[in-house]
């Protein structure tokens, strides 16, 4: 069937076209309805893709009939199909959440344009997740960066620091993208190809090639900026904390995850045979950097009083866990990383959404001093928030526990007790900042009445949808686990 055959292209094309339409729509409500409907279609197509991949294992979609390695291809296998589903799911939930939240945070006349950029960002995330072409990725990277920056800057109505955050992201993101495209240039010079699979084959024929190694190093560095890997994460905390809540939850949940996925694909799927670079990079760069990220993010979060910034810092630590799992360079390490990509996206998305609702309730930024007793005033949102927090710690029967289980499995398989001690210590530290929040929000008496009558159901419903999935994945973890193992199989072969 025509539609089913072209799903990979449609997944990018539909939100892209819808974005143009949305920007022309007269009313905010219609614009939202159109955008929401678009994300629903994307979710449906993502489910179809999962079905296709589970029966055919892999899919290569050549644009315009130009067969690879000449044309642009989208490649789908078990490493990225669940990521596509994740992006689609989170987009639906975040758009649902945006209905109430975005309208209260930015001017009404800007809303249709905001939803247009919103869809653009979603389209670029799908593109990033699927493309099998090194240069095409750069294009999506730029679309994603520009649309994210616009969305972040929309937070200026609430807090003018959003403009600075967006500007920082623009500059640092541009540097990252430049690094990436320089890398692609080197690689193109060395291999004469832009198709990732083709590049792998040619590199194997080429043997050791300094230009290719230099190229790869540039590409990895560029992607790390986008993925928010320590220490090139510096754009991230401000960007997440000053963006409108709906934007924060969308970006925090999936934007960095897509970059991390591509990072893993470059390392394990494409360049794994260049062992002199990859082994060195994993052991001597990525691992120490990940450990630093984990401790920096966690400890900085403990001392942070602004909630959104706190969770942004926690994201840096969580990204550290994912890259740490990758740096173990093993099948179970890669599985653990991919499992945590999914789980952390859901958890952090839910947390950012809940913080947004709290901030709406008190009419100002959520900080340790302004949030006293707010948990008691907004119990429904708070209950979801607490469950997501428990999942972030990795409490059993939540999705976070499954991540932790597989991360520790991967660590124990290395037989290195030092890693065990480090990760165990960091997980204890992460309890501290969540306990601090709990103490402030629940154990202290409320200090001021809420600015809204009651918790908006249209805002806490999405939170609870996310939390529901988190709890289900903690109890029936089979799908998530097999998606992680499937990703590792697709990248480095079954073990």
């Amino acid at each position, binding site marked *: 069937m025509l539609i089913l055959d072209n799903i990979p292209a449609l997944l990018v094309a539909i939100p892209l076209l819808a974005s143009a339409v949305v920007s022309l729509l007269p009313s905010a409500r219609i614009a939202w309805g159109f955008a929401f409907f678009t994300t629903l279609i994307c979710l449906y197509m993502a489910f179809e893709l999962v079905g296709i991949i589970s029966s055919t294992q892999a899919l290569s979609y050549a644009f315009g009939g130009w067969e690879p390695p000449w044309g642009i291809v989208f490649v789908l296998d078990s490493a990225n199909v669940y990521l596509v589903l994740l992006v689609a799911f989170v987009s639906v939930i975040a758009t649902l959440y945006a209905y109430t939240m975005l309208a209260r945070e930015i001017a009404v006349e800007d809303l249709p344009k905001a939803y247009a950029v919103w869809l653009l960002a979603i389209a670029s995330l799908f593109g990033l997740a699927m493309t099998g072409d090194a240069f095409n990725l750069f294009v999506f990277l730029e679309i994603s960066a520009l649309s994210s920056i616009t969305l972040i800057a929309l937070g200026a109505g609430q807090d003018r620091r959003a403009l600075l955050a967006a500007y920082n992201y623009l500059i640092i993101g541009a540097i990252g993208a430049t690094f990436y495209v320089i890398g692609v240039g080197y690689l193109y010079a060395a291999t004469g190809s832009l198709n990732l699979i083709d590049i792998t084959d040619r590199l194997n024929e080429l043997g050791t090639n300094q230009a290719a190694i230099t190229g790869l190093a540039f590409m990895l560095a560029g992607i790390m900026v986008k993925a928010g890997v320590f220490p090139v994460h510096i754009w991230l905390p401000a960007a997440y904390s000053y963006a409108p809540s709906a934007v924060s939850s969308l970006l925090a949940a999936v934007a960095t995850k897509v970059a991390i996925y591509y990072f893993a694909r470059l390392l394990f799927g494409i360049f794994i045979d260049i062992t002199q670079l990859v082994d060195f990079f994993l052991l001597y760069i990525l691992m120490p950097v990940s450990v630093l990220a984990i401790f920096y993010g966690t400890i900085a979060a403990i001392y942070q009083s602004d909630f959104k910034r706190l969770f942004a810092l926690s994201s840096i630590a969580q990204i550290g866990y994912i890259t740490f799992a990758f740096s173990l360079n093993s099948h179970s390490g890669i599985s653990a990383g991919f499992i945590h990509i999914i789980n952390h996206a859901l958890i952090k998305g839910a947390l950012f959404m809940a913080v947004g609702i709290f901030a709406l309730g008190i009419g100002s930024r959520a900080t340790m001093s302004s949030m006293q007793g707010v948990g008691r005033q907004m119990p429904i949102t708070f209950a979801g928030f607490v469950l997501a927090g428990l999942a972030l710690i990795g*409490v*059993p*029967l939540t999705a976070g*526990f*499954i991540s*932790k*289980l597989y991360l*520790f*499995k991967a660590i*124990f*398989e290395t037989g290195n*007790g030092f890693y*065990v001690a480090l*990760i*165990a*210590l960091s*997980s*204890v530290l992460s*309890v501290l900042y969540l306990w601090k929040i709990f103490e402030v929000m629940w154990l202290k008496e409320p200090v001021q009445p809420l600015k809204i009558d009651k918790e908006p159901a249209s805002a806490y419903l999405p939170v609870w949808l996310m939390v529901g999935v988190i709890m289900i994945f*903690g*109890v*029936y*973890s*089979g799908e998530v*686990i097999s998606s992680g193992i499937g990703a590792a199989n697709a990248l480095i072969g079954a073990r």
Partner: protein
Amino acid sequence: MSDLQLLLAISLVMPLLSALAVLVFSNQENIRDICGPVGGLITFISAIFIASAIMDGKTVSITLWQIAPGIDFSFAVTPLGALFGLVASGLWILASIYTVGYMRGAKEKNQTRFAFYYAVAIHAAMAISYSGNLMMLFIFYEVLTFSTYPLVAHSQTKEARNAGRLYMGILVATSLLLFLPAIFWVWTVSGTLEFTKGGILPADFPPFLVSVMLAMFAFGIGKAALMPIHRWLPAAMVAPTPVSALLHAVAVVKAGVFSVLTITVYIFGIDFLNTTGSAVWLAWLAAFTILASSIIAITKDDLKARLAYSTISQLSYIVLGAALATAAATEGAALHIVMHATAKITLFFCAGAIYVNAHIKKISELDGLGPKLPLIFIAFFLASLSIIGIPPMGGSWSKFLLMAGSVDAGMPLMLAVLAISSLLNVYYLLEPCARAFFKPAIKKVHVENHILTIIPPVVTAMISLSLFFTIDWVRPLTTLMVMP
């Protein structure tokens, strides 16, 4: 669902229902306060049926779903678990009766909240007893920690909050830092966490790593109060006495040593530990804890503090039994869970009764109080004898088996440790009675008589006494535990 599964479900759900009933009837004090004893009775009866089925060689288990490969959300009763379930639920009945007398007598605030978390804690203890695997045990171990925090910090004074923070800090940190990673480790090397007789570790697992893993468990299970992870227990004594009695003499601390014993028996396997000698260091550490905390207990004038250090010492008897890893020693350890629980709950009941009825907390002020509260001090005396291990009290059996076990394990020095500990027990446990009966009263004390605080200790003292004669009722469970 078979009858036995139904009983298992009842014994797990009943405490929770009782907790909910407490909330529902929060405004009708008398109905609210009957929820605990009734819930306890139903739970206890189910526990008896479950234990007798286990004695008949039946298996009792419920598997709900799979959390991850090799980790089920399941309950499966081991002989040891059946024994602990009996202790926790049986003593809950008496403790909940006592709680009513104490809380009303001491005019404590927030009695509904107290009764609610009390029942939730018992639920966690029952779930720990009947856990089917190590992960389930861990989950409810944490539920127990979190549900007892509001009880420890009950009075909401600065002191109580600080104690609560220390309590949570030590228990949560050790469990996340050591206990949980150790569980992950077991799962990584064996692919399962199911409690299996003879252990689940691969036979070629290096002995040195066994020691490391055992250390992660021994120190990770902070509730076992092995030195130096014992500080939380004296701190927790700021809680109202019913908490100290049931939770910090029975449910919480016994959950700790129960976990240690379960892990040595069903995860490592006692033969495995014995042949590799990986637990010898733990036996010595337990011996040190036994003696050191006895000596600290002597220096304490506060009755509850003294009992707390006595508990730390007695818990290490059980850890010692587990570490010796012979059939007799582990049996002794398992029986000591029962014997020490009944005796120590009596002592705490007495301490609380003395406080409620005479408003005295210090041992040095007990002089001449004996004739005014005769039943309390007789109960105290009997329970002390049981802890010292003098026949005809139940405690003499477990001590005897522990001694036999140390000889079997080729560590006769442990005999000396146990003997010295008994002597220290004589000194610090009999002093309160001696003062109460043989010293003249130094000041006039007004004594009330809250009957609900007096009956429970008398009953538990009687149980402690009768366990000497009825040891054959519970012994089959411990025999089943060590049978190859």
